[in-house]
């Protein structure tokens, strides 16, 4: 149905032309689901955008053919293309909330598409839009018709985007990272919905994702891309079990799966020693409560949570958005004051000191944080060296030369090559920025490191490296970790204990091995089911319930 031959796409940039896609060949049969897998910069999204010819400005198809149903899309004129878009070929996107017009009712946005392709008249558009909403399983579709995107959750927004894409019964759906930014349980329901609809309508799907596990579960055929070229192609089972190309092998290895140890993620990984966990409690959270004043009355972000963390231990605080995990980590990091309960550090209360005054507390150096977004948490005008030296300048009395020596030492510890120290954040890669963030947190020789989704924005192969670095550091420095994450697979690799949070309450807590192998709470089970790679590989012990 779709045949791509020798596709080349170039982008005009200030520094000359950049080849984003270099000679891609693809074939898609009717009713087939094709997974396009690759890390950022692999050209997978650009390939998809060129099918619909909606490349960003500056991008153009340099050569090659894209044949859909006998029409060469690369030569078709704008009017012909516009007729195909949304009617024959549709697309859904990542970040669904941004993908919807923020100031137009969702019902009207669906109507726009229906009316455009003459699938509805002014009189029955409303009814058909509601039917489209019902088809993507939105409850109370009639009321939702009048909702604006900001009134809906991320998962709901993605359903609306799907409703828009499928309103005119297209025969090909391109899904560009449709689950990125959604909660684990929502991810699963969105993907299941796409699968159900594609089967019911015999629709072909191109699924673009960085997540090999996701692609493996939902696709008939996988294509791995790197640097604008196809690396390997095949059925999911063969591709993941006997990868031929070294890049595919690396990618498969880096994907966290149950049963894998952390050093399995990278090729040259060495096993880590069993961590030395002391019997002494380092951090103790007692009945922590946090209430924010919201627009519609108070919001109870934390409803009294308690847990202990021993010195040298690693505890995973797991939950979806709105679970209160970030609020809890901010309070423990002493950036926020709780409205109730207390946090004991080394037996003494740290919540007795207000967050604003905590910077002068001698324990400030002992509790440090690594933030989620490595890019946003670095000052764009400070070089890596300045970023790492900043806490030393503020909280220690080290002289200039001592400080510089310490920065070198830290950079070496986190595997950041010294020549990179003088670069600004935008000149560093994602993994390098993450290393700068970790080095900065380690500068003051903390005892407790709070890691707030430190790998969430990273590609899997980079994530594998960073996770190994964290495990190495824990081993060599005897650090205690509080690891905040939505990703159970990652938590499982790094942590000995797990606390599952939901709506400000603890659903389940205990040793990581037990909680993930035999979860008791339904919610934990749902979370695990969302981590869908369980069924992918046979040689891996699947998570059993």
């Amino acid at each position, binding site marked *: 149905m779709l045949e791509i031959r020798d596709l080349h796409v170039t982008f005009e940039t200030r520094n000359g032309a950049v080849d984003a896609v270099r000679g891609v060949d693809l074939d898609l049969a009717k009713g087939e689901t094709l997974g396009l897998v690759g890390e950022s910069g692999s050209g997978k999204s650009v390939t998809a955008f060129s099918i619909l010819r909606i490349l960003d400005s500056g991008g153009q198809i340099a050569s090659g053919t894209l044949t859909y149903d006998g029409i060469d899309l690369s030569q078709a004129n704008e009017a012909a293309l516009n007729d195909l878009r949304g009617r024959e070929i549709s697309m859904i*996107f990542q970040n669904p909330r941004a993908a919807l017009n923020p100031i137009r009712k969702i019902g009207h946005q669906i109507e726009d598409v229906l009316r455009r392709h003459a699938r509805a008249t002014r009189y029955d558009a409303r009814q058909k839009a509601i039917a489209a909403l019902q088809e993507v399983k939105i409850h109370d579709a009639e009321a939702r018709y009048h909702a604006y995107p900001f009134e809906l959750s991320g998962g709901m927004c993605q359903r609306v985007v799907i409703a828009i894409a499928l309103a005119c019964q297209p025969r090909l759906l391109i899904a560009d990272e449709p689950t990125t930014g959604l909660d684990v349980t929502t991810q699963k329901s969105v993907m299941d919905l796409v699968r159900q609809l594609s089967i019911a309508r015999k629709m072909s799907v191109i699924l673009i994702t960085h997540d090999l596990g996701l692609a493996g579960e939902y696709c008939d055929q996988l294509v791995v891309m790197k640097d604008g070229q196809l690396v390997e192609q095949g059925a999911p089972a063969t591709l993941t079990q006997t990868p031929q190309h070294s890049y595919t092998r690396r990618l498969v290895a880096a994907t966290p799966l149950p049963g894998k140890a952390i050093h399995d993620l990278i090729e040259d990984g060495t096993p880590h020693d069993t961590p030395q966990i002391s019997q002494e409690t380092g951090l103790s959270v007692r009945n922590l409560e946090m209430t924010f004043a919201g627009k519609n009355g108070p919001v109870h972000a934390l409803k009294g949570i308690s847990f202990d963390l021993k010195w040298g231990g690693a505890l995973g605080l797991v939950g979806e958005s709105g679970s209160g995990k970030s609020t809890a980590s901010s309070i423990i990091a002493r950036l926020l004051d709780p409205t109730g309960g207390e946090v004991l550090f080394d037996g003494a209360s740290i919540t007795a000191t207000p967050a604003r005054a905590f910077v002068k507390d001698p324990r400030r150096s002992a509790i440090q944080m690594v933030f989620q977004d490595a890019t946003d948490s670095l000052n764009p005008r400070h070089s890596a060296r300045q970023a790492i030296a900043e806490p030393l300048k503020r909280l220690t009395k080290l002289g200039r030369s001592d400080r510089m020596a310490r920065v070198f030492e830290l950079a070496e510890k986190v595997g950041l090559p010294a020549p990179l120290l003088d670069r600004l954040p935008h000149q560093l890669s994602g993994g390098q920025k993450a290393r700068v963030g970790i080095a900065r947190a380690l500068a003051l020789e903390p005892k407790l490191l709070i890691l707030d989704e430190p790998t969430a924005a990273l590609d899997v192969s980079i994530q594998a490296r960073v996770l190994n670095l964290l495990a190495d550091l824990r081993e060599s420095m005897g650090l205690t970790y509080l690891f905040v994450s939505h990703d159970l697979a990652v938590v499982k690799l790094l942590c000995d204990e797990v606390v599952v949070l939901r709506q400000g309450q603890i659903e389940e807590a205990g040793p990581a091995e037990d909680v993930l192998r035999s979860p008791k709470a339904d919610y934990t089970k749902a979370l695990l089911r969302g981590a869908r790679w369980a069924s992918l590989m046979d040689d891996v012990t699947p998570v059993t319930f």
Partner: protein
Amino acid sequence: MASRARIVGGRLLQAIPVVIGVVIITFVLTRALPGDPAAYFAGDAADEASIQQVREALGLDKSMPEQFLRYVGDLLRGDLGTSLSTGQSVLDDLARRLPASLELTLTALILSCIVAIPLGVMAATAPGSWKDHLCRVFVTAGVSLPTFFTGILLIYIFYFVLELAPAPLGRLDFIFIEPDPVTGFYLIDSAMARDWETFWGAAKQLVLPACTMALFTLAPIARMTRAAMLAALSSDYIRTARAAGLARRTVLMRYAFRNAMLPVVTTLGMVFSFALGANVLVEKVFAWPGIGSYAVDALVASDYAAVQGFVLTMALLFVALNLLIDLAYAAIDPRIGFDGA
């Protein structure tokens, strides 16, 4: 709708401290102005005794707090005092001159929007093209030519050389009779009276000064429209709309333009308030009897009552304008408005 009314009420309440602040500041500032109004109005030939007499008549011999209390008392009764230079009550002066300024500014802004917004949209849809360059030329010319210069240039071309425009002497040629003041806007009043001759007479007088102002206000509006449209056009929801095959017009107007309107409305409010103040040069060139020239004359003459009246009126206008912008915002953007966020 009840919630909408509550927002309006809330915003008006918020304006009260602003107005009180303005009353105090204008009072203090006018007192801090150099020059002695008593000496000024007593005339060159006055001796010490007659100056003292004028001073007592103006109440300027009293202590500052006492003067202030009297001023506030008068204000509460709706009495803005009497202008010393015109001899009229300040309220009457302002009531006659404010509509003149508003009519000029509003016409200029409407003209400016009609040109600037399409220009900005056009430039944004084809960045780097000749349309974009045309927009840039307009914008640069608009900001770099001072209003008094464009004003005089327009008078020279259209009145002196081409003889198309009437003499730049105020709002209406003396051969017409002023329409009954209902709104104070000559165009509206004469249209309401079905006096089309006067309407055309007033319109002709208005064209040149309005064009002068419009040229000046064109730049910020066009520039903001272009920037807001560019931002909107590169957003994710435009990509969704394009991928759904929506017509270019729908994408441009219904998706991009409405979102781009938000910053444009803010800019419009700012431009309006600053145009009302910057009017004075245009008013002087075209002998327009507006409040800008009134205020400058009053300031030069240390005419306390007139200056205070002017500043207070402007403050109230700004409050009303901000309210209007907030309401426009709430009407365009469903995300804001219902709890005053």
